[in-house]
């Protein structure tokens, strides 16, 4: 187990360092002088010189990279060039919207998908199964931002039940905050639910065919008891895998959905930063997202080993 953990942790470190190098290269080295990237090629020389001095862009790339990483280890991400506040502070504020959105969608999707997937598998080749599979096929094809627009048309334009977008902030009361996140969460969970439902269904069907399920039935367990005690835990491994993969989908999904509903989250922050050419913000937010993806995959690997004891010996 410890060898397994050590190997996974090493992979994790390599991946995260590689990600930071790639981000730095793509933003500050390959496009040429970052001062020009930020101000545009026709900026006056005096302004370019000023920003070079202010952000230390006159130093060699390697020195800037090391300074960036060293700063990260001390919890520093530098100042936003546009807002003149620490990037950590900006991200911290915006995560108050993005995190509830991401976690809420994941939770809604997981609960719905597990129920639908198990329901479809236990009604295999019957009408309920076809219905669930048809729904998930549709869910995979609908672009989430369009689904969001349709929900706005229905619930905000036609029914006037929910706001069409925006976020009042948590200070305005929990209920108002939750209300303005309801449509976004529902929107984001659609495609996640579709994918996870398919995976859950096929995993349950697959495990239900295993010999040990027959053994369980031979002990006198009912179909339902065999499903709960023997099928589901084994079916969890593929579901976990896809759950890990989907974390990346959720994160990038929040970027899109925040734009659909005009939510002041990290997604809005990064697209504003792109328009403002605020490289400090872009660089750190992208690294944060990549890091979350990598960390989640690392945690999924460990969860596997907890669910399936066989994995502990295959390092």
């Amino acid at each position, binding site marked *: 187990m410890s060898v397994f953990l050590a190997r996974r942790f090493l992979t994790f470190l390599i991946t995260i360092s590689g990600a930071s190098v790639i981000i730095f290269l793509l933003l500050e080295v390959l496009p040429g002088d970052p001062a020009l990237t930020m101000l545009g090629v026709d900026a006056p020389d005096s302004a370019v010189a000023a920003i070079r001095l202010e952000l230390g862009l006159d130093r060699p790339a390697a020195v800037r990279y090391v300074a960036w990483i060293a700063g990260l280890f001390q919890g520093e991400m530098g100042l936003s060039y546009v807002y003149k506040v620490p990037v950590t502070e900006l991200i911290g504020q915006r995560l108050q919207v993005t995190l509830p959105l991401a976690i809420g969608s994941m939770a809604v999707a997981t609960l719905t998908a597990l129920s639908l997937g198990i329901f479809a598998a236990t009604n295999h080749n019957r009408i309920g199964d076809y219905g669930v599979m048809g729904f998930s096929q549709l869910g995979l094809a609908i672009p989430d931002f369009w689904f969001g627009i349709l929900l706005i048309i229905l619930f905000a334009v036609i029914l006037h039940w929910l706001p069409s977008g925006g976020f009042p902030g948590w200070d305005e009361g929990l209920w108002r905050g939750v209300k303005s996140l309801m449509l976004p969460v529902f929107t984001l969970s659609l495609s996640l639910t579709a994918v996870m439902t398919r995976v859950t269904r096929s995993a349950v069907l697959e495990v239900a065919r295993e010999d040990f399920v027959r053994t369980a039935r031979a002990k006198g367990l009912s179909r339902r008891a065999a499903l709960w005690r023997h099928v589901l835990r084994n079916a969890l491994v593929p579901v976990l895998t896809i759950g890990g993969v989907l974390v990346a989908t959720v994160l990038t999904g929040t970027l899109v959905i925040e734009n659909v509903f005009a939510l002041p989250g990290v997604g809005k922050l990064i697209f504003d930063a792109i328009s403002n*050419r605020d490289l400090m913000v872009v660089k750190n937010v992208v690294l944060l997202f990549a890091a979350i993806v990598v960390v989640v995959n690392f945690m999924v690997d460990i969860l596997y080993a907890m669910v399936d004891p066989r994995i502990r010996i295959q390092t």
Partner: protein
Amino acid sequence: MTETVSNSDRGSGQGTGRGTASLGFLGRALGHRSFMIGLLLTGAMIISALVSLVWTPHSPTEIVIAERLKLPSASHWFGTDQFGRDILSMIMAGAQTSIVVGLIAVSLGAVLGVSLGLWAAARRGWTEDVIMRLSDLNLAFPVILIAILLTAGWGPGIINAILALGIYNISVFARQVRGAGIAMWEREFVLAARAAGKGNLAITIEHVLPNIISIIVVQATISFAIAILAEAALSYLGVGSQPPNPSWGRMLSESQSYIFLAPIIAVWPGLAIVLSVLGLNLIGDGLRDLVDPRLARRR
């Protein structure tokens, strides 16, 4: 030897051919309902893109302010947008963008990814380790993050969307091909070819690749569908296709400003995306059933 006469499992129950093992591929394909629906939808998308090259009902770019935000009518079947452009014409021309982006991105990913995957499967050892670690790294950057990095560094443009999708697809194909390739290398006919003294490259081209080509085709279909969705999302966010180039995603982002005035204009581009993606997904699933009934059963 237990007699496991399992009850016949009909794929995922989407009208897969039953007891048709004796028919040829074409016969089975014709009998596969969802596959045929997929073919029909995808065909419609390709044909509208092709037709739009030479003819559209109106110009997809011509601005006629007098005709703005019109409801569907005999002259404008899908209505007009905020600049009075004909929505049907824009949708037809938008199919071009989706197809071009999808084709280039998937080809880029498939060519590089398949080569890397085959190489990893043939060489194993540290070659495989390096390729797999690189692919881990690649997967840490979902399509939108790559597009954001490219846009922040070089400014917006459709080329960013294509590159982002292409780069992302490299590891998707590499992983899939490596897995299937390793399984092939353990088969008897490959062992026999090695015993006969054939080299890695010859075995890969003569034995491994032909046997996993169906997996690659299925993946390419699914990746194409994902590419259409992603291109739409990137264009919606403003980091993909740029005006005046018609794009379904950007049409949706523009329609959102007029959502209270003319909600109907937000419906058409979305439907076009859904039907195209659905078509490709159905083809992909159908192909999986048709080329390998065993795989179908395991879904």
